């Protein structure tokens, strides 16, 4: 494994370590080239078992995880290691933007979702964000979230706050769906970027934990859960 040392800004003063999981070697090579020296790629894996072994061995900061993976898919990797290694963050990466894949992998524990045609800089930014504990929402993912939590429901009908988005969270999601970056969202709503990040993380948590029946039904309509 090559160990380039870029030394650019990284969380905690050391280079971010990244595990690359994808069943296409060519794609892995491409990502490696695009990431360059911004992060340290400690290993690559081509299927679920390799990925799990690599997570156990290297304890990377971030796992770039393909959604479609031999052995049960990215969600399977998450199910088997995510709870045991909370310090490792997962960022899903896929060509498929089918709603069930996206929401499925998020509900399994990924902290974000980006499509494979993302540019190198955006990917590096997303990796840093995820490593720092934030969530990464693409416009498409924000659209899915709004769709899943759609419909106005009476506050009294809702059992827990997990089951609905606050007005502010909805606004943030809508802006992200409209193509705003976090910085632009912050400017638009007159709040700090940190607050935007808090809102987004909170939406991610709701998406993962909510048992809201509309969400379940929406998911069932698309054959997931």
């Amino acid at each position, binding site marked *: 494994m090559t160990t380039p040392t870029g030394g650019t800004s990284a969380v905690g003063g050391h280079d971010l370590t990244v595990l690359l999981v994808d069943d296409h070697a060519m794609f892995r090579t491409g990502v490696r080239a695009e990431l360059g020296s911004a992060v340290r790629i400690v290993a690559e894996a081509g299927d679920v078992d390799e990925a799990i072994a690599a997570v156990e061995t290297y304890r990377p900061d971030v796992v770039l995880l393909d959604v479609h993976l031999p052995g049960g*898919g990215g969600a399977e990797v998450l199910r088997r290691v995510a709870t045991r290694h909370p310090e490792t963050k997962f960022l899903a990466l896929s060509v*498929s*933007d089918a709603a069930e894949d996206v929401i499925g992998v998020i509900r399994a524990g990924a902290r974000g979702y980006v499509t494979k045609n993302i540019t190198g800089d955006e990917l590096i930014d997303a990796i840093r964000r995820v490593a720092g504990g934030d969530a990464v929402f693409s416009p498409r993912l924000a659209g899915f979230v709004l769709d899943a939590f*759609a419909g106005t429901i009476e506050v009294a009908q809702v059992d827990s706050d997990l089951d609905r988005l606050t007005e502010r969270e909805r606004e943030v999601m809508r802006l992200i769906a409209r193509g*705003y970056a976090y910085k632009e969202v912050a400017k638009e709503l007159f709040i700090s970027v940190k607050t935007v990040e808090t809102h987004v993380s909170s939406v991610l948590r709701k998406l993962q934990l909510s048992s809201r029946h509309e969400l379940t039904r929406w998911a069932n309509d698309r054959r997931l859960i």
Partner: protein
Amino acid sequence: MTATPPVRRLYRSPSSRVLGGVAQGLADHLGVPVLWVRLAFVVTTVFQLAGVLAYAAFWIFVPLGTAETSPGLASATRRGLRSEEKDTDAAPSNRYTLQTAALVVLGIGVVWFVVGSNRVSSLLFPAVLAIAGFALIWRQADDTSLRRWVWETSGWQAVLRTAAGTLLVLIAYGVFVAQLGGGLGSAAQLLAALVVALAGAGLLLGPWVVRLVTALAEERRERVRSQERADVAAHLHDSVLQTLALLQKNASDPALVATLARRQERELRDWLYAEPSHDGTTLRKGLVADAAEIETTYRVPIEVVGVGDTDPDADVDALRAAAREAMTNAAKHSGADRIDVYAEVGGAEVEVFVRDRGRGFDPTQVPEDRLGIRRSLVARMERHGGSAVVRSAPGEGTEVRLALPLVRDRSPNGGRDGAPEGADGGADR
């Protein structure tokens, strides 16, 4: 809506079924609540057990429906690239199972009442046992056919279920014979004779039947596979090969190559992962199609995200046309390297946002041509009772917000004026 809808076929429901999925399938097909169908089965049981027999007939003759997914997802699932969907038959909630159980008890009560209590003991008990046995066995057969691709999932549970079903049927038979004629002895004798006859027939015909069945399954699998291969080959030839040829020819023009690759990607993605399409063009589909066209013309990627959807009418078509104009504008003038389009169909209104991070402009000092475009956007939307707001500043990009109320109580001159936060409500300066 000139396209004729495809013939609707009756399928048993694989997802939310309690017994055979017959009632759910019928309810889906007829568009009535499933409870009605179940009640109908119970009520018709009064007439010579017609309900039970009809249910059994439906179970035998109506094929089990399959969950429809896009080819890309189906293939990924087959190759084990995605996590196996949790049991497809785990769906019916406890409420429905309880409901069905209650109905079954009710049905038994009805039969009791009709047949008369004196004959009940002799007939009803074995009949219920036999029905339960058959239900178990058939249900097992359903599950196997549902998972054709993975034989291993059956396992010992399947064997156990089938055995239990067979046992139930045998007991029912024994009780029946014992009660009809001369006691348990003759029933045992009859059963023994039956078993011997069956064993003999099995010995004679068994190998032949087995070979026939395997050959049939093999043939069917082969046919499905070759059909799939032909489909894929045709598609690859029509699109991917053509694009690759074009790419080679235009290798010297990076922008064109990128556009071609992007268009091909979009098309392939659509083919692989799009949700199974309904007929007719909805607003979202229209926007995606427009975006693809503009993207090809001006070589700027356009990302369309949508929440909710609506069928087209004159107003929605106007909205789509305005959105198209906004996209064209952004692609032509902004110089941005990508354009985001967001469409949201809410309860009260439809909104479409077209946003670029291009050079933008100062709305107070608009060049003549762009003012014209803005006027036409605003005027067009207002004619249809909606609004258009253009927000822009030099260096900050441009965002166009198009809105159309869905509750159509419009005043003749369009009523609503632009949203308060807009930098431009279409007023002349």
